[in-house]
Structure formats: C-alpha cells, structure tokens
C-alpha cells in the first residue's frame, strides 16, 4: 500500500505551458484570418487576443488557488477550441456585423461563470443535495420558451429561445446540466433498488415503477416539451443522456437495448407525424435531388453547400481567410464545422475532432478517478453530453445522420451554448480535482463530530490506492 502511493502532483505548470500553446493556436488563428486584409493588426485584433489571453490566464490562476489537482489538459483544450471558434466567427463577420465581438463577450461571461462555479462550489458533492431541485429547474427551464411574455417566439422553426432584455437565450442548454445533476443524484442513491428490486421478464429485468417513476417523469418532461418546441437535436441529446447515465449506473446492457429500440420507434413515429422531422430526413436521404435542394424551408442546400466547401478544402484546406465558407447558410453557427473543414482541410478538422475526443476522455478519466458514485455519474453524464452533441452536429454536417439544430460545443456562435459548456468544464475540473487529489485517511479530529451521512458516500472505488 504505502509503497504504491506517491504524493499526487498538481501539475499546474504543465497546464500553464499547454495553455500558452493553446493561446498561440487561438491567437494565431485570429491573426491568419485577417492577414491579407489591410486591417490585419488593428486595435480590434490586439484587443480581442489580449482579452482572451487575460481571461485564460485568470482562469489558470483560479485553478492554482482553488482546484490545485484539477486535470491539467482540460483548460488548454477548451481554450484552443474556443479560440479557433472566435477566429472563425470573426472571419465570417460581414462588414459591420458584430457576431465576433458578441461571441467574445459571451466567452468572457461564460469563463467568469465557470470561475464562479469553481470558486464558490468547493465540492461537487454539494450538488447532490439539489437532486430534486434540479429536476424542477430542468422542467422550468424547458417550459420557459413556451411561456407567453418571455418567449422569443418561433425562430427558425424552433421555439427554444427566451428574451432577456436585448439578448436571446436558450434555456435548454442549461437544462442539460441540471438534468445530468438530477440523473446523477437520483441514480447514485437508488441504484441498488433499481438493480435488485423488480420483476424479471425473460433476459430483461424491469425495475419497480415506484423506483423508476421520477426518471420516467424526467424523460417525459424533456421529450414532451421538446416535441412542442420542435427541437429534434436537443431531444436526441436528452434521450442519449438518459440512457447513458442509467447504463453507467446499472451496467445492464438491457437498458441500451431498450433505449435503442425506443429511439428507433420514436424516430419512426416522429418521421411519420411531424413534418419538420420528415423534411430533415428527406433532406438527408435525397440531398442531391434538385427539388430537395431548392425546397424552402427544409431544403438540403445548407448541407450540400457545406459538403462542397469541405471538398474544396481538401486535405490541407484553403487556409484561414482564403476560402468562401460564407456561401453556406449559418456558416458561423450550425455549419462552423464545414467552414473549418474548408479552411483547415481534413488535417485541421481531424485536429479539432481529436481535441473533442481528448476532452471526452479526460471527463471519463475524472469519473474513473473520483470516489463517490454521484461524481462518477455526473462526470460521465456531462462529458457524454458534450461528446454526443459533437457527434450529432459533425455527423449532421458530414451527412452521416440527418442534420439537427444542435450547436458545436465551444466553436459555434451562440452565447447560451458557450455558457452551458463552460459551466460543464468548471464542473469537470472540480470533479477531476477531487479525483486526482490526495485521499484523506487521517482519523477525524476529536470533537468535530461525524459529517452528515449521504454527502460523502464512497462507492466501489475503482482506484486501489
């Protein structure tokens, strides 16, 4: 035992070195996009690069103070992705367009909120107390866009925005975090009941309805509201989150079988009943048919233009600022992957996809390392949410699956998505801090009394110290 354990290393200096490299990528991208315009190195460029660098370094400083043992590669990965996204959005801005600066503003807000999460929420296990409050909050957040008065109405065929003063906000993005907290809290305390109690039908074991009630309600609420909001992407995201977390908690493959069957059934019914789903599937299968290409709304022009753009980029890409990604509708949000594919080529796009993969593995590493069931489930759920979102978007853009309206995490223009994903990063950093930090096995100091049970309930620790 004692010969195996060494003092855990914070490795913050490694993070600093990687962070400087990540900033070089972000700022380099921003420099390249404007290099052959006359205003390449104007005050805007220095202002934006400086702000991004200062924000990233402040974040690093906060980690040094508050979460010394946090994973050293998560922050550099996210800063690099965010920097590339900022440069691409800035590059796609038409003259007089302000999306780039708006995105920078949201980046700063999102980083500040993530810092706040790390600073004030000293331990992720505190979130377990808010299990059912999170369920209520998720329901509220998902219903908000349907409430008259604050709803921003139907934008681009979906009702997922609310109006906050001059800005619009997508509460569904935050709901994926609160739902993950609820699933993690509920499953970590009821796992044994779901596993053991219940009726066995053939090879599948069905839990008692009583134990599954809140889970089914959570699922119905999210799916129900999303049918009314007509947002196919988020409904896939919530459903995937639900299945993965229940699978991770129970390690029963039957859940995945049931889930895939439900997705197939639900997808079939949705394709028959909802015209917008039908249009999406038609635009995916028959994308190159002229009638489908020209149809409005629901045509495949966007996908096909994106594919042409990526084909134009080829292996090496046209170079940042040299292509014409602006020909694609929504080139800076839904189709930013196609824009990056055109200008950075396959080599650059693979680098971006690999960054997401690394981020995902670090989230799972934190889940493996942490000792409490709640933290394990939360880290799995949050990192899976990011990964599934990437799959749905990149798969849609490359015409592997029908295109749905989800945002590319950290890259796409859109404040709500940026905010939610930075909060996820904050939570993952905190979970990895407890996972990698030293384990306290010293006896309780006398007179302090026992801690409240239930908050610190270690489960089967995968880590054998």
């Amino acid at each position, binding site marked *: *035992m*004692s*010969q*195996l*354990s*060494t003092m855990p290393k914070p*490795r913050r200096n*490694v993070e600093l*070195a*990687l962070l400087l*490299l*990540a900033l*070089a*990528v972000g700022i*380099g*991208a921003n420099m*390249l996009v404007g*290099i*052959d315009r006359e205003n390449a190195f104007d005050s805007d460029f220095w202002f934006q690069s400086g702000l991004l660098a200062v924000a990233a370094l402040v974040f690093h400083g906060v980690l040094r103070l508050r979460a010394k043992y946090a994973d*050293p*590669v998560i922050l*550099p*990965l996210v800063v*690099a992705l965010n920097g590339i996204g900022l440069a691409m959005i800035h590059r796609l801005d038409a003259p007089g367009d302000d999306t780039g600066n708006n995105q920078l503003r949201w980046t700063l807000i999102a980083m500040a909120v993530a810092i706040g999460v790390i600073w004030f929420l000293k331990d992720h296990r505190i979130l377990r107390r808010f299990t059912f409050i999170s369920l209520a909050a998720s329901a509220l957040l998902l219903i908000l866009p349907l409430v008259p008065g604050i709803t921003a109405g139907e934008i681009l065929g979906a009702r997922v925005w609310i109006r906050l003063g001059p800005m619009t906000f997508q509460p569904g993005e935050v709901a994926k975090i609160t739902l993950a907290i609820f699933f993690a809290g509920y499953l*970590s305390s009821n796992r*044994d009941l779901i596993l053991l109690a219940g009726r066995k039908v053939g090879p599948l074991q069905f839990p008692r309805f009583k134990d599954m009630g809140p889970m089914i309600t959570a699922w119905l609420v999210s799916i129900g509201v999303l049918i009314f909001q007509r947002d196919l992407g988020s409904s896939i995201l919530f459903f995937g989150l639900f299945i993965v977390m229940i699978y991770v908690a129970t390690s029963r493959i039957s859940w995945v079988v049931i889930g895939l069957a439900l997705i197939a059934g639900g997808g079939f019914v949705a394709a028959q009943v909802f015209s917008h789903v039908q249009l999406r599937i038609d635009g995916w299968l028959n994308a190159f048919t002229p009638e489908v290409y020209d149809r409005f709304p629901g045509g495949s022009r966007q996908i096909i233009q994106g594919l042409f753009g990526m084909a134009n980029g080829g292996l*090496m*890409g046209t*170079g*940042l600022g*040299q292509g014409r990604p602006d020909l694609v509708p929504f080139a800076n949000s839904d189709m930013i992957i196609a824009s990056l594919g055109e200008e*950075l*080529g396959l*080599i*650059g796009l693979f*680098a*971006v996809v*690999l*960054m997401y993969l*690394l981020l995902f593995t*670090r989230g799972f*590493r934190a889940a493996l390392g942490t000792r409490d*069931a709640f933290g394990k489930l939360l880290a799995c759920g949050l990192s899976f949410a990011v990964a599934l979102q990437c799959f749905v978007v990149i798969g849609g853009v490359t015409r592997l699956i029908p295109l749905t309206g989800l945002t590319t995490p950290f890259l796409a223009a859109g404040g709500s998505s940026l905010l939610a994903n930075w909060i996820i990063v904050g939570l993952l950093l905190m979970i990895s801090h407890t996972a990698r930090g030293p*384990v*306290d*096995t010293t*006896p*309780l100091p006398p007179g302090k009394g*026992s*801690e*409240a*049970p239930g908050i*610190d*309930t*270690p*489960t*089967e*620790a995968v880590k*054998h*110290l």
Partner: protein
Amino acid sequence: MSDLTITALRFGFLLLLWVLIFSIVSAMRRDLMVGRKAASGAPTQREVRKNPGLAEAAPQPVKQQAHQLVVIEGPLKGTTLPLAASPILLGRAQEATLVLEDDYASGRHARLFPQGSRWFIEDLGSTNGTYLADQQLTRALPVEPGVPVRIGKTVIELRP
C-alpha cells in the same frame, strides 16, 4: 504580404494545431501509465532488470499490527481469514474476499485496506451501512485490533 509567406503561415498553423495535440497527449502519458515512470512511482520491470539496485531499494512492508480477521457474530461465525498486504473486500458479491452470506449486507459492502502499520475500513456505499464500534462510517477509519466492525448481522474483529 507575399503569397509565399501566407502559404508558409497556413501550413505553420496546421503544424501548430498538431503540436498542441501531441503536447497534450504526452502530458497525459504519465497519467495513462505508459511512460518511463509509472504513476505509482514504483520502478518498472525493465528498470529493475537494468539496475538491480532498485529492487532492494523498495521499502520493506511495514509490520502490521493485526494478522487475522475473525467473524465473531452472524451466519459465518467462527470463520477466520489471514490478513496479508492486500486490501480485503467484504460483501455478498462472489468477487468479495470474504463472501458474507448475510441478507443485510450489500454486494460490495466495505473494504479493509492496510496503510502503514494499520488497517483501515471504508464503506463502499452500502445500503445498511458499516459500523465501527457502533459508530456509522462516513469515511475511511483505522480499525484497532479487538474493535468490533458490524456489517448487517455480521460482526468481525481484527486479531493480532
């Protein structure tokens, strides 16, 4: 700016992207325990072969206070188990070191592990809890020889 410079910068940026990725992967290498030095800090087989001095340098196992685990109450009463240097899993699961035939114990109920000269017990999120001298465990605590540990209806004790 000339075309040549721009082309060079273009390729330079792609290179920079991959430099970042390879730096990150190499920073993770130690964490994945595939580097020269394993995360445990123990010398690898190869290092020991090359440098026999390392093997002796490994610290001697500390003398343990307790050498035996005895079940003093419950269905398995009278069972004894010698304590070695490895952790012991208690529970109803087949993989447990001591398989408790106790309806009130969880599958993976608790874990006993040595640290220094003492043994520690840690509850693994059991349904009914683990009690060390009538106090429910909320964290890993040291078990002194002769102090009863209750798991469901089973009571165990460490003996020197």
